């Protein structure tokens, strides 16, 4: 039975990775998860300099999901490269660094800084709804997506994943724009912009007013968008959005995702990634599937 998949020439032992921002760089989860078993670890977004993030409260629970507005707090690329990459290098898993920025220059600076680091793939976050500048601003027009993709690709030594926002009218336009700009892979969906009002305090539940909705509540939207995007481009798609079980992950794979990311589920089941990997293998045995690649996008 083969669970190996290929993303732009990088072979992963299985299609299961972590979603950026939900797993740190794996250090905190290593108590519960053997990182060697993961297809890849996708790190929390890192910028050229440290970012303090948003005021608290940064999160709120909603029915079947959560809203977060952490605001991409991160230590900046220098600390990250000296601490997080060497940590991940000790494990037999692929390293995907998520890159965030407020300007094209910021993204390029991080991407160039990572050129000589032992990083397998770069994921460019052009879809964070919680920062005022950059982030989602790059991800909401096809022209901007194509432009930033091309600029990043020119500077990048590693294959580039463009992480797309679901907060757009037509996801296929953004997927095609990323492909036209030279993206090697696309990943989706980032969180949906949401809001919760705290009726006792009579104010917004998160200090940023709006935040990104994630968790099981968004899964049907994510599956639909992954299906649409996968059918609009030739490059591989990484699917995510509300995956907590192997059954969820398989929906994305059948809809066209080559790989999947487990995000919010890590918060309520620290070993969710392992449960998904084991469940996919069980499904393959039960269905007599020899190669995971035979499942990708077969639901048309």
């Amino acid at each position, binding site marked *: 039975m083969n669970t190996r998949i290929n993303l732009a020439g990088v072979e992963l032992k299985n299609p299961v990775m972590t979603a950026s921002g939900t797993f*740190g760089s794996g250090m*905190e989860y290593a108590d519960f998860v053997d990182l060697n078993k993961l297809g890849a670890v996708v790190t929390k977004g890192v910028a050229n300099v440290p970012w303090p*993030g948003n005021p608290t409260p940064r999160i709120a629970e909603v029915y079947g999901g959560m809203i977060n507005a952490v605001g991409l707090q991160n230590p900046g690329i220098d600390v990250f490269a000296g601490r997080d990459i060497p940590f991940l290098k000790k494990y037999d898993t692929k390293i995907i660094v998520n890159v965030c920025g407020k300007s094209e220059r910021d993204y390029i600076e991080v991407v160039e800084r990572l050129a000589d680091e032992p990083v397998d793939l770069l994921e460019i976050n052009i879809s964070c709804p919680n920062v005022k500048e950059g982030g989602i601003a790059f991800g909401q027009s096809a022209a901007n997506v194509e432009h930033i993709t091309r600029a990043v690709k020119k500077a990048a030594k590693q294959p580039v994943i463009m992480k797309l926002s679901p907060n757009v009218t037509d996801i296929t336009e953004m997927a095609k724009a990323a492909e036209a700009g030279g993206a090697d892979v696309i990943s989706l969906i980032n969180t949906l912009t949401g809001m919760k009002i705290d009726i006792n305090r009579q104010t917004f539940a998160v200090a940023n007013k709006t935040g990104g909705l994630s968790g099981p509540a968004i899964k049907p939207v994510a599956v639909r968008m992954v299906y649409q995007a996968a059918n609009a481009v030739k490059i591989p798609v990484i699917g995510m959005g509300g995956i907590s079980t192997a059954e969820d992950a398989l929906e994305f794979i059948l809809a066209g995702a080559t790989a999947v990311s487990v995000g919010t589920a890590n918060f309520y089941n620290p070993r969710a990634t392992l449960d998904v990997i084991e469940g996919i293998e069980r499904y393959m045995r039960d269905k007599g599937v020899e190669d995971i690649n035979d499942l990708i996008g077969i639901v048309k």
Partner: protein
Amino acid sequence: MKFDETAIVESQRQISDGIYDMWIMTANIAEKSFPGQFISVYTNDASRLLPRPISICETDGRRLRIVYRVVGGGTAEFSGYKAGDKIHILGPLGNGFPIDRSGASGRKAILIGGGIGIPPMLELAKRIQDDKEIVVGYRNSDTFLDRELKLYGNLTIATDDGSLGTHGTVIDAVSANKISGDVIYACGPTPMLRAVKQYALDNGIEAWLSLEERMACGIGACLACVCRSTDKDSHSMVHNKRVCKDGPVFNAAEVEL
């Protein structure tokens, strides 16, 4: 070391209005727990995703005790658990109070708890072998844990409505009773912690405060539960310490409240 356990409820009873007292049998967590640490408790309701961080009230090495207030649907679910029920918990989490493992430091301690910040004071009071004063604040005379706390030190009570002890805050009670000490350990609502910090500063007393913030992962990965810190934090170097991992107990001088 942290453990992800499906533990067993040994007993549960209501001990005050909306306050529940649960003993849990654990494989490892109880043995490894230190006062001031907490556990993440997961609900069985899949619509409620996030674990509820609950402070550790007491441990005997095999069993863990939590005393918590029902504040929403998640804690309401926990309050319905009966002896023998399974409970999914992660812990022990956080740093705990910085007391010597031997419990003796030769310094007089003042333990201050407010409302649902009182429970962690019980295990702390048990462990500290030095001379100590315990000051607790309640809304009214519907108290909890006071009889047990009395076993471990001189207990002073303050109530918001004046129905028992000093009418006012824990700091009012400290002043009214001329309570003095060398180090303060406190847990309670932020306004109380702010007052304790000011009192400690005014009187030149070292103080350790246990903070609360909305959490998601509970282990330091998601960066949801940060607080403003004087020093650069070890994770992001931006003066945002993680309440769940760098805390929940901080030196009063190192956090802005």
